[in-house]
């Protein structure tokens, strides 16, 4: 059975969402409500354009010449692509058959069945771990830490390639205490971590919260140093440094 996908937008020639040059598909729908979210219009499940996975794959493949020469591919982002696991799995299988490298970005607040549906069709997981403190996490995003950790563990147990991504947000996880807690909690997953500094583009416009969320370089450096003290490897500029 073919399922359609609800797509917020497609962005070609991305350098940030995984290795090489990538085409990122922002999918519709997210279970969280992070206050700093830049894509509030992608949070609702019903919006966006409806696309058939095969037809979408054809369109995405137009940038193949650039993926092949840079080790790039397609990244599903959102929203949370795992909320459309069936369609995403079809799309990724199609791309996999064409030999394309596939990443999925997820916030992890999805049914475990969704994770399982994608385990065989994802080459690299970019898995958000936003905050180690369950109460702070719930307050700022609505997420349940235990549920996210269970899904994260499920991916790791499958032996899949995974990077933990941490959006570093002013007033949320930019303090040494938060870093310390993060390092302790994340350390147990034995996966490298990529720190993504928050930025203020589009603040206050189109439903985006007006509060500042950007942090300066010293925050990123402090956070990275703290993680390294716990033996956690850091991804920077698409290379992993212990």
């Amino acid at each position, binding site marked *: 059975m073919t399922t359609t996908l609800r797509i917020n937008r*497609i962005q*070609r*020639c991305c350098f940030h969402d995984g290795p090489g040059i990538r085409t990122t598909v922002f999918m519709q729908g997210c279970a969280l409500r992070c206050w700093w979210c830049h894509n509030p219009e992608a949070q609702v499940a019903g919006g966006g354009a409806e696309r058939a996975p095969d037809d979408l794959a054809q369109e995405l493949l137009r940038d193949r010449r*650039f993926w092949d020469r840079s080790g790039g591919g397609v990244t599903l982002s959102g929203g949370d692509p795992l909320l459309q696991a069936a369609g995403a799995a079809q799309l990724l299988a199609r791309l996999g058959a064409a030999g394309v490298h596939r990443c999925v970005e997820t916030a992890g607040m999805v049914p475990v069945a969704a994770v399982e549906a994608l385990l065989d069709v994802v080459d690299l997981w970019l898995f958000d771990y936003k905050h180690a403190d369950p109460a702070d996490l719930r307050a700022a995003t609505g997420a349940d830490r235990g549920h996210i950790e269970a899904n994260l563990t499920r991916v790791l147990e499958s032996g899949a390639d995974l990077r933990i991504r941490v959006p570093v947000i002013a007033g949320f996880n930019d303090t040494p205490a938060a870093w310390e807690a993060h390092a302790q909690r994340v350390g147990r997953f034995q996966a490298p971590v990529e720190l993504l500094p928050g930025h203020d583009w589009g603040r206050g416009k189109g439903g985006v919260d007006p509060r500042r969320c950007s942090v300066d370089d010293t925050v990123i450096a402090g956070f990275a140093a703290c993680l390294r003290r716990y033996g956690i490897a850091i991804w920077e500029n698409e290379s992993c440094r212990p």
Partner: protein
Amino acid sequence: MQALSQTIDARLAAAQDHVDWQRAEIVVRAWPRCAECHPAERSAGVLTAILAEIDLDLETNPMFAGATGGKPGHIMTMPEYGWGADGQARIEVPDLCAVIDAEMVPTAIQDYIDQNGFGGHHSYGHLAVDLERVVHGGLARIIAACDEHAGRGDADAQARRRAMATACRAVIAWAQRYAEGAEQRAARESDPLLAARYKRMAQACRRVPALPARTLHEALQAVVLCHLAQHIEGHGLSVSLGLLDRVLAPFADEAVGNSPDTAELFEAFLLAIHANGVHGRFSKTQCVTIGGADATGRDCCNATSEAILRAFDAVRVPDPHVFLRWHPALNAPVANVAYDMLLRGVSMPLLVNDVPTVAGFERLGIATEDAWDYCVIGCNELGIPGRACETAMGPGAIHINVVHAALCEELAPQSLSQWIERYEMRVEQQLRKQVAGFVAQRDRHAQERPTPFTSALMYDTVERGSDCANGLRYRTPASYERGLSNAVDAMAAVDALVFHGDVSMDALRAALRGDWPDESLRQRFLAVTAWGNDDPQIDAIARRILDARHRAGDRVAAALGLPGLLYCHVVRSLHHMAGKTLGATADGRHAGEALGDSLGACSGRALAGPTAVLGSVLTLDPARDYGGGTNLNLNLNPQGMRLDHLRALVEGFFIDGGQELQIACVSAAQLRDAQCHPERHRDLLVRIAGFNARFVELSALEQQEIVARAEHVC
């Protein structure tokens, strides 16, 4: 930058723009003496007089002799053509043009222009001579060849050959003047380092360009003198430096390791070319081409290739500019230096791909070994040093103008096919007139304003006794185009909204006549997907337009007995000039707005990002569609981009057949900062469309265009 180059650069930067009437005065005096001669001998006689008298400049650049005037900042005067500011210069360097406009032309010179002026401001340029014969053969050998063939051909050929020999002697004598001046200067100099530089200059000028160069310095000295002599002879924009690294290959050992001495040599060389006073500091797009493969597929880079690139990176002058010929086996260190420069926002080198370019020349019957010697001879126009230099030919077909005129015919087209048919008819009429006009104009140059020195440096001209205006090995007139993106967008929008939508043709034509009085209607036209978004349906329209243009061009070429036409899509600032006189168009463009600035998407319309622009352009057939050269601006946001990303973009495009890339990795934020604090960004070089410029020196109009372009990058 090396210390010496810094000093030279500072001298050039501090120079005041000023009109230098000396050359004009000499011409006015020398002309009557040669009035009865064969025109080529008259040209040679005038050149002899100029080079015997023109002020030497020994102070600005102690490394290389040769200058078009006595002081930096001069604007050379060429009354045998005319006088005034170039139209593109008015857009690019309005302050320089104000100096030109404010100048009173001396009466004797004005009288001379009124009587003898050929028209324009200078000769056609857009050529590359064979520097191999300058550097490794020497002018004495060319003179000997003239003597050897003296009796051959008719009286015209014999006179032209005599003129070539005379012109070469004039250039040798000019070098001797510099040798003498440098010897005296060395004797006066108390600084031993500077004295040694002048001695070396003197020694070089005693030898070159008469005899073959023995060292890298002598080779570059020969190039400087012969390059500037072509300008002094009368050539204006785009006299190119050919395949410079190949010419210098026998001296590559001297450049290995790019020592400070080598760096100093190349930097001072570029500054000597930069100081060229034709039209003052207006960019003359003096192009250096490096890299590439030969006909056997062998990479032609050598140690001078990298040294040349690094010198361009160090001096950051807008003119000369450098093109790197790309091919799959391009020397990796040279390619990496290039990518690194681009990633740092240097806007150079420009990249051109061997395979489709050579194929474009071969289509016109150019021999394979000649085709592999191609170089850039202008902003982007292509030619073959000494053999084929006719790609830049003036107005050509401005696609959007033709498309617009066809739309506005009394009976409007009823379908896209009908519209394209009418476009084809109009293009054919236009090309017929223009190509014939071009050929006639070149004949007129050869008859009335021949340039025997430049001709002497070409292939076959000595043997034939011909002028380079119309007597080169290959004749390759081109159609000189722009506005393709506007034309495609206009057709796509009308197809969607008029032929297949709810807007009536009458309503559209009324909107165009009134310059889009209803903004909401204009927005609907702008909302239709544009060229440059890798949309197969839209891109197919571009191909249909070019198929039609091509059929028309083939008929015109056949009628004129030419093997075919080359086509250039070259913009420089002509998109502003063309836009100014064009009313509102169906692509949503307002009357007077600039046209698209390259073969890529119109400004602000590449919504799917840079790879989609490349995808659209890859649907064209560069060998057929733009064999004469094209410019494709690709703006990339440098944030997060690494060298391997850039390499993948270039290789992905070129391996699949793309022809040319002008990459700019400058963020809008950086540009805006430069607008606010020009003093901090004096070295910020940007690529406009066919030329480079220091951003802070651009007019407000051009600055705004560059910022807008950078803002529309995803």
